[in-house]
């Protein structure tokens, strides 16, 4: 029996099979295939006695030697060493017995029994090694499958990742677009806001025009009347002079002096109103000045009152003004502070007028006698953030502000007026202006009794100010 070729065949066959993740390169697979063909051909040829026994043995040994050499020296086959180790004793014993048989057949006969036993053990060794290696191979196979599984999972994750990346890119594009749209909207809002602030300023000026006309007309009338009467007085004076009534002349001269003073006073009054109006409408150049809040309060109270009177004949309200003569000046932008005061005054008059309108419809006679009243007062705060401060209180006896909307009234666009009558920016702008001047704008309100707005502002220590 010729073992060499069979062993060579087994070796070649197993070498081709992949173990675990380690697979044989196609080039080596090809070589192994040729080895197997050689082994099978040799076996066939031996069986048909076409080849001499010795040659087939030699071919088988050559194949085995090749395999052993490959397994020992070529890295790809290092994993198959156990296979070689399993069959090596069988090969060695087979070769030894062949050599002995060849060299001395007699000696071979005496040793045959021994060689058979050795062959038997070598076979057992080979089988047990085969089992062990099979077990190992199975474990490795399992590992390979696991690895494949992991590979598959990895590929799935990869594809999911790619999908997600596409989605993220889409979302990012959408968000960028939205961001740009929002930025555009924000810019539009900003320019609208600027327009609205201007509109609010113009609206309050519009409310003023009638008041301004009246307030200018009044001093102008006085200027005209006093100059006319002075003219008459001079004629009288001349008459008295020709009569020699010196005492009378002196009295007339006194009157004339007073009249001239009045003309000057009323001329200045008209002048101040025109200046105030120009200041109010002029776009703010942000220039700070020393402001006399007493003068601003007095001027705007009159303007507002007459403005509302001219607009609405049924409107009427009592008003009083209590000014602190020693009120410190305030450093600020006069037209802005004027706007705040005007806005608060307009609101106060609006509130009392609304209540007054409703009072006429009341059936209860006590409520019908409602007397609208607005009071503006100024006072000095001895200590406001470490220096003297100014307080302006604006009270009305309107219906008061309901608790639930008190927190909203400083919000932009919040208004209780009917649509088209208020921009809802008055108080919000007022609040911003006072804050920008380092002051506070607060309110106290009791439903059914009225509302008081209080402005507090830091004053200017005039003793230190060189003007």
């Amino acid at each position: 029996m010729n073992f060499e070729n069979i062993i060579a065949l087994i070796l070649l066959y197993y070498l081709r099979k992949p173990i675990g993740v380690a697979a044989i390169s196609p080039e080596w697979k090809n070589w192994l295939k040729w080895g197997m063909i050689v082994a099978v051909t040799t076996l066939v040829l031996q069986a048909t006695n076409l080849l001499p026994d010795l040659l087939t043995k030699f071919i088988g040994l050559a194949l085995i030697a090749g395999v052993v050499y490959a397994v020992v020296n070529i890295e790809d086959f290092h994993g198959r060493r156990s296979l070689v180790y399993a069959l090596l004793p069988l090969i060695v014993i087979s070769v030894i017995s062949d050599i002995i048989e060849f060299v001395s057949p007699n000696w071979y006969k005496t040793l045959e029994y021994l060689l058979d036993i050795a062959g038997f053990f070598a076979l057992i060794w080979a089988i047990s090694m085969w089992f062990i290696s099979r077990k190992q191979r199975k474990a490795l196979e399992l590992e390979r499958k696991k690895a494949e599984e992991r590979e598959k999972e990895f590929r799935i994750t990869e594809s999911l990742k790619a999908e997600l990346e596409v989605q993220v890119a889409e979302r990012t594009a959408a968000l960028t677009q939205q961001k740009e749209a929002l930025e555009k909207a924000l810019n539009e809002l900003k320019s609208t806001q600027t327009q609205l602030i201007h509109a609010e300023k113009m609206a309050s000026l519009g409310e003023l025009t009638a008041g301004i006309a009246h307030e200018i007309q009044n001093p102008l009338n006085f200027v005209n009347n006093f100059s006319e009467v002075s003219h008459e007085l001079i004629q009288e004076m001349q008459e008295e002079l020709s009569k020699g009534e010196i005492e009378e002349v002196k009295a007339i001269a006194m009157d004339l002096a007073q009249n001239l003073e009045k003309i000057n006073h009323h001329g200045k009054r008209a002048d101040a109103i025109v200046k105030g109006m120009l200041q109010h409408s002029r776009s703010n150049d942000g220039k700070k000045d020393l402001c006399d809040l007493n003068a601003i309060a007095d001027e705007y109270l009159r303007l507002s009152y007459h403005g509302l009177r001219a607009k609405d004949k049924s409107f009427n309200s009592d008003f009083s003004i209590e000014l602190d003569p020693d009120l410190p000046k305030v450093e600020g932008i006069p037209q802005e502070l004027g706007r705040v005061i005007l806005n608060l005054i307009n609101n106060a008059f609006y509130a009392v007028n609304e209540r007054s309108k409703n009072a006429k419809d009341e059936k209860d006679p006590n409520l019908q006698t409602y007397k609208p009243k607005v009071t503006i007062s100024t006072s000095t705060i001895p200590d406001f953030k470490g220096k003297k401060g100014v307080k302006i209180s604006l009270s009305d006896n309107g219906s008061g502000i309901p608790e639930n909307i008190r927190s909203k009234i400083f919000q932009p666009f919040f208004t209780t007026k009917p649509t088209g009558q208020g921009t809802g920016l008055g108080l919000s702008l007022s609040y911003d202006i006072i804050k920008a001047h380092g002051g506070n704008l607060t309110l106290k309100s009791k439903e059914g009794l009225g509302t008081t707005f209080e402005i507090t502002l830091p004053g200017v220590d005039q003793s230190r100010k060189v003007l």
Partner: protein
Amino acid sequence: MKILIVDDEKDVEMLFRQKFRKEIKNGNLELVFAFSGAEAMRVLEESNPPKVVYVFSDINMPGMTGLELLDKIKEKYPQINVSMISAYGDSDNYNKAIKSGAKEFFTKPINFDSLREEIKALMN
């Protein structure tokens, strides 16, 4: 003859006193002033019946307006003449005043000649 002038502008007093200087001097005319509707009513209530025979009132005043004052005077003292003086010579004010019994309606700036005519007519 006692005349009451009602206006919230205090300088009106000086102006009237100078305009009617002669009449006041020779005692034909006595002028009293009130600076609000409420004050005017107090002046009228000082004596019963009031010595005032003519009231000239501004319309635009804080508190009680001239038209409200007119109603009150006409209700309490229908014999007293009341004329309105207003910066707003619109028909609305005019109609209201005349309907409430105002004698005349003068517009500001006051034409003192026509005012003097009115007073003279009353004196005779």
